[in-house]
């Protein structure tokens, strides 16, 4: 069964290591130097809270298409789904609409438990907590991303690193750069998150996720910002994992509505077992 590598002295590996060191040497100071100091009276937590509002209301209804690209796939895999999220109740519901093979598959979260409905075998499976950080539907988003098990605001301590006057993804839209470190007792996988948040409207631009060993694991990018119910809502979310060339997942929001009153029976096992 799998175990550690042994060829760390090979020339190819050494060249890669030297290249990585060079990239780090050149990139790190440049990135840091680009940041202008932020006003001292700004509250990093408030900025994060604000940016979360762009994607999430008290309740959120969403219809979206997710496209998964991978060297494994001859053509990108497309998944269409609808989701309902009840923020204060810490409840979520997702129903897969397409492809036909997966249509009807459902996810129900009532904090802290996540169930999935597998229509072909007509079974509800309660997913173990460790699955929260696993891939959702084979994508580069995790179950946690989709059902918001952890809390982007309360599970972390936030620190404003500065202002990026010309972010790589949107050079004409300056962004706050906020570093979030998890609280000791928070059930999260990330050791560090660095977020770029639009100075003008607090819409999220980019989030970088780091592992325990300091390596970046994944980058989320947000684009196509449109105003919905007065909120600047990114309609395109892309996730690119590090270290896996050719992999990317893009979610395209087709419809999003905030703060509607959601039916109580939406978040029930009976509904999970049903079909839309």
């Amino acid at each position, binding site marked *: *069964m799998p175990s550690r*590598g042994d060829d760390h002295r090979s020339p190819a590996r050494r060249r890669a290591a030297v290249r990585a060191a060079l990239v780090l040497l050149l990139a790190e100071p440049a990135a840091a130097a680009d940041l202008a100091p932020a006003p001292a009276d700004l509250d990093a937590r408030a900025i994060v809270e604000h940016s979360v509002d762009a994607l999430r209301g008290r309740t959120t209804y969403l219809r979206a298409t997710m496209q998964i690209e991978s060297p494994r*796939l001859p053509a990108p*895999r497309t998944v269409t789904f609808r989701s309902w999220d009840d923020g204060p109740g810490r409840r979520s519901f997702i129903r897969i609409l397409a492809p036909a093979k997966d249509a009807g598959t459902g996810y129900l979260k009532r904090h802290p438990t996540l169930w999935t409905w*597998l229509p072909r075998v007509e079974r509800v499976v*309660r997913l173990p907590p460790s*699955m929260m950080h696993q891939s959702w*539907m*084979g994508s580069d988003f995790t179950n946690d991303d989709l059902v918001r098990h952890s809390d982007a605001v309360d599970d972390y301590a936030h620190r404003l690193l500065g202002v990026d006057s010309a972010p790589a993804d949107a050079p004409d839209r300056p962004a706050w750069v906020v570093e979030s470190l998890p609280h000791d007792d928070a059930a999260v996988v990330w050791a560090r998150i660095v977020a770029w948040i639009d100075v003008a409207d607090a819409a999220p631009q980019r989030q970088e996720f780091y592992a325990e060993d300091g390596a970046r694991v994944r980058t989320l990018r947000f684009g196509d910002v449109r105003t919905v119910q007065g909120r600047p809502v990114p309609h395109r979310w892309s996730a690119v994992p590090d270290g896996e060339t050719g992999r990317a997942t893009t979610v395209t929001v087709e419809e999003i509505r905030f703060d509607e009153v959601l039916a109580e029976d939406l978040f029930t096992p009976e509904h999970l077992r049903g079909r839309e």
Partner: protein
Amino acid sequence: VTVSLLRLAWRNVTRQRRRAALTISATAFATFVVTLGGGVKDGTDAQVIEGNARLRSGHVALTGAGHRRDPTLAHTLVLDDALVRTVETTPGVRALAPRLAAPGLLSSAAHTAVVTLLGVDPAREARVSTLAARVRAGAFVPAAGGTVVVGQRLADALGVQAGDTVLAHAVAYTLEPAYERYRVSGVMRLPDPTLDATLAVLALADAQALLAREGRATEVAVLAAGAADAPAVAAALRTALAAAPGEPVEVRTWDEQSPELVRLLALNRAGGRLVHGIVLAVVGFGILDTLLISVVERRREFGVVLALGLRPGALFRLVVLESLCLGGLGVAVGLAAAVPAVAALGAWPVRFGGELARTMEVLGADALWVGRLEWRTVAGAAAAVGLVSAAAALYPARLGSRTPLGAGARRT
């Protein structure tokens, strides 16, 4: 001169029979402890290594390129007749077992567990691993498939037994959710508690269909005559596979495959050496003490022979030879007792319990004291005790050889 010195030394040794017997017993005891300890270590190590190979990846494992760095379905090898033929016809290969492994979930009506789904070819698997032999209730996966065999702890966690139905759930190679129902055909008892709580074995064809990896394997476990043959068989396989057409295949021996086991065995061995070192030191000081007394007792005698013209160097050699005579006898007696004891433990291993037994189980081996006679261990023990006997004699010999010439005359 040396022969007569040796004769003299022997006569001196036999002059004090009780003291000689005591020194010989101490030396024999040290030899016995070090030889038996080493023999049991050799036997237990061999058993742990073999148990690990038979529970996991065999003596030599073949994987697709990159699988070690990223052990996922992304790195598999093409499992075709050509590969099987190439491996089977490589000298030293006794048997091979192709496997397809992936993480997944296994659910009963009430519970879900995180598992490793392991697809195996039942007929080939039985010749390589002990999985099939470890089934305690029901039967191993039949050739036709459709069933799953789980560890006892996994069965307990799910609340299932042979005959029940479970649902396997994973992400296929195509990144689609994959799930299928299987009947539990058997429950196996695996020595490693983690494996026992997480391993779900199904037919290779079922795993390939579920995970959308038809005609592929994550690993081919190869069995050689023994762990010692692994490097030669691996080298032969590398040559044979490099010459064969197709995607690159990585070949690794059991120790390259399980470096943590190698480290653990080395650490354990170092601990054993420390204990043996302490035993040898204690015995060494015992010999030193006895020799010192015998030298001091013979001051008059030594003074006389030196006065008569015996060279101090010859006297020095005499004392060392006396010690070597005692040491040699002790080693002979010790080996005479230890070698049959090690051989007996090889034939009739002794089961033990406690914390150590659990450690052995985690390693995949049975908790047994097994002996194994290896000439290197036996020779090493004899040489170590011999060396200690000689070293312990140095100071008394020096003291004796420097006895003042008139030491005997000043008696009254």
